[in-house]
């Protein structure tokens, strides 16, 4: 597959690893922001390819993990309604709320459907005029154009039986929250390549300048990740803290203007609560007033949901890169592939889940005996 296969070339990967090894003179802590990048790293075994001393920590780029419990509970309350067809990306199906998950709601008779694209909801709405179709519009900026288009098309076509439950979050405020924390260990970032394809990367420049950290906007294939790491390391070694673009075949500084235009017409920035982190100002999207009619939170009175959430939980620390799954006392013991325990375990892009799926609960020493597998 073009633009995929060649970015999995083992020889070039080895060369990149060697360049990193040569460039590096001391340990560095680098955060990859996107859950998709985490997935790629663990699935391809990239963290085991990197030289010792390059520590990759996983950032909060996992909308599944950061969606607050209240929002999950609202989603579930709506999904339980007999007049509702609840549509969601597959990622959210297994996230537990205060009681049950979307699977259990389905088993109790709820109509829950996995969709690939928000536009599929329009078809479902047209085919089921006597039902209310509700789409769980989660995601970072990458998914905002798609969710915006659903809202836009719904209004254009005058469909009365469709609405969106919006839980959008934005990356730069999350990075700022991480950088401003006194416990921050992260020295450089692999920036979110697909988020930036939509919104560009100019927002990251003030962050890089203020905190003097390298932010290299990076793609998702193994060679992208390795090249991104190399660029971060080279910056760190030379004392620079700038924004660079590794993923130039897909994006430029300004991002996608038509997408940004529609996002601005449909959404407005607002404060958002992040699970395990708390409220971060101006860190999410809400539907604008003009689209209130399509806002599921307004259409369905989902009130008085009994939700309790402490200020900090271990998944929150992992999401901020302050702790790694290995640091969690339960990781690999009470919390194992057979008995998953944490928020970040729920789907493949959560840091712990990615680790469990790909076995990072093995420490380096556990892989002794298969030395010939490592270059």
């Amino acid at each position, binding site marked *: 597959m073009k633009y995929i296969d060649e970015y*999995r070339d083992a020889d070039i990967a080895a060369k990149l690893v060697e360049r990193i090894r040569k460039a590096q003179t001391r340990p560095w802590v680098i955060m990859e922001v996107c859950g998709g990048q985490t997935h790629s790293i663990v*699935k391809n075994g990239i963290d085991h390819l990197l030289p010792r001393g390059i520590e990759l920590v996983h950032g909060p780029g996992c909308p599944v993990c950061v969606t607050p419990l209240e929002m999950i509970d609202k989603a579930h309350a709506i999904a339980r309604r007999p007049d509702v067809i609840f549509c969601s990306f597959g990622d959210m199906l297994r996230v537990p709320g205060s009681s049950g998950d979307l699977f*259990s709601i389905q088993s109790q008779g709820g109509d829950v459907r996995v969709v690939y694209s928000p536009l599929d909801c329009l078809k479902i709405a047209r085919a089921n005029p006597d039902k209310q179709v509700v789409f769980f519009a989660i995601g970072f900026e990458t998914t905002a154009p798609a969710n915006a288009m659903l809202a836009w098309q719904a209004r254009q076509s005058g469909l009365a039986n469709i609405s969106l439950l919006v839980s959008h979050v934005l990356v730069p405020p999350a990075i700022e929250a991480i950088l401003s924390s006194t416990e921050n260990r992260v020295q450089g970032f692999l920036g979110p390549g697909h988020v930036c394809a939509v919104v560009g990367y100019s927002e990251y420049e003030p962050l890089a300048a203020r905190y003097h950290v390298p932010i290299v906007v990076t793609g998702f294939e193994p060679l992208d990740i390795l090249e991104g790491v190399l660029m971060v390391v080279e910056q760190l070694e030379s004392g620079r803290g700038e924004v660079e673009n590794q993923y130039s075949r897909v994006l430029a500084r300004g991002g996608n203007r038509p997408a940004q235009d529609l996002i601005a017409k449909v959404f407005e920035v607002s404060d958002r609560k992040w699970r395990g982190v708390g409220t971060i100002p101006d860190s999410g999207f809400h539907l604008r007033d003009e689209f209130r009619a399509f806002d599921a939170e307004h259409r369905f009175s989902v009130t008085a949901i009994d939700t309790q959430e402490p200020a900090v939980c271990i998944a929150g620390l992992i999401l901020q890169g302050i702790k790694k799954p290995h640091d969690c006392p339960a990781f690999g013991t009470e919390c194992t592939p057979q008995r998953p*325990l*944490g928020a970040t375990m729920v789907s493949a892009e959560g840091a712990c889940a990615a680790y469990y799926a790909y076995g990072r609960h093995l420490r380096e020493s556990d892989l002794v005996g298969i030395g010939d597998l490592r270059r």
Partner: protein
Amino acid sequence: MSTSKIDDTPVQTAESAALGPFGACPLPIFNHPQIVLGHGSGGKLSAELIEKVFVSRFRNPTLDRMDDQAILQVGSARLAFTTDSFVVTPIFFPGGDIGTLAINGTVNDLAVGGATPLYLAAAFILEEGLAATDLARVADSMALAAQQSAVQLVTGDTKVVNRGKGDKVFITTTGIGLVERPTQLSADRARPGDKILLSGYIGDHGITILSQREHLEFEGALASDCAALHSLVREMLDAAEAAGDLPGVRVMRDPTRGGVATVLNEIAVRSRTGMILREPEIPVHETVRGACELLGLDPLYVANEGKLVAIIAPSIADAVLAAMRNHPLGADSCVIGEVVEQPAGMVLMKTTVGGTRVVDVLFGEQLPRIC
């Protein structure tokens, strides 16, 4: 407040007791009060259900082996005995239908136990409103598949349930075969040094089904690989016997739901060995690859209906592989890895890019993702 209690959750401190060990971290639910779809996925949820609800109540040495079939000594004969249910939607798909699956699936479970499949029983649960022509089509497929495998359908049952209480048709087939050779095929027989053989391209069936499913549909030249494998198995056992090492064929499994990854993990756990796979050796068609990349799925976990994996002693691996390649259903057979001593119970894979990852067992169904 999240979480259903898990039986073996450790004791918590007073303040966190109410919330679970990690505050609001939600526990993916294991102890569902109702059955959920994940229980049928072949992953950890399924395994838990089967163990807790069924195996625990019916313990006996044969059941405890949890192989795809039961090998029973009845008088002087060794019989293989198995059952399987087929609930696929849609019931017709490129490459087959629920009827072909129902015959071939059970034939295959007998075959990988080293048995010559002989007789089948079939039970049908029909939903009120099912088109008679559809049922006839399914029955035709079953008749053809049975004939091609030289198995006889010797008994059966039919029930009809109210509209909405079924899904067009559910079929359960039960099969009996004769194990004529002194094979010792079982999931606990893999040994370090053994080779892991795969009979061809993976993921075709599961991705074909997925492509027909609303809201995930895509186009491509996809067809299920549904096929009866007993003649392929026969060639493999012939080759092993000719090489003087029939017990060198340690395990054979057909990787249906849960895919190759699930089956290899089961073997690794039962055999208390590790396994190392090599990603570049694992054959995947471009169509399956494209679909998997698009939806964020891993072909290792996607169902197959006409493939087998076999763990073979190194001394006869080449001979068995050659025999497989000579057979139409095994033309693309390859060695995808080895059995190793450590890490016991785990399957590792060297990735295309040169890294190493663990191929774990899924929790429930593999779902398309956007992340």
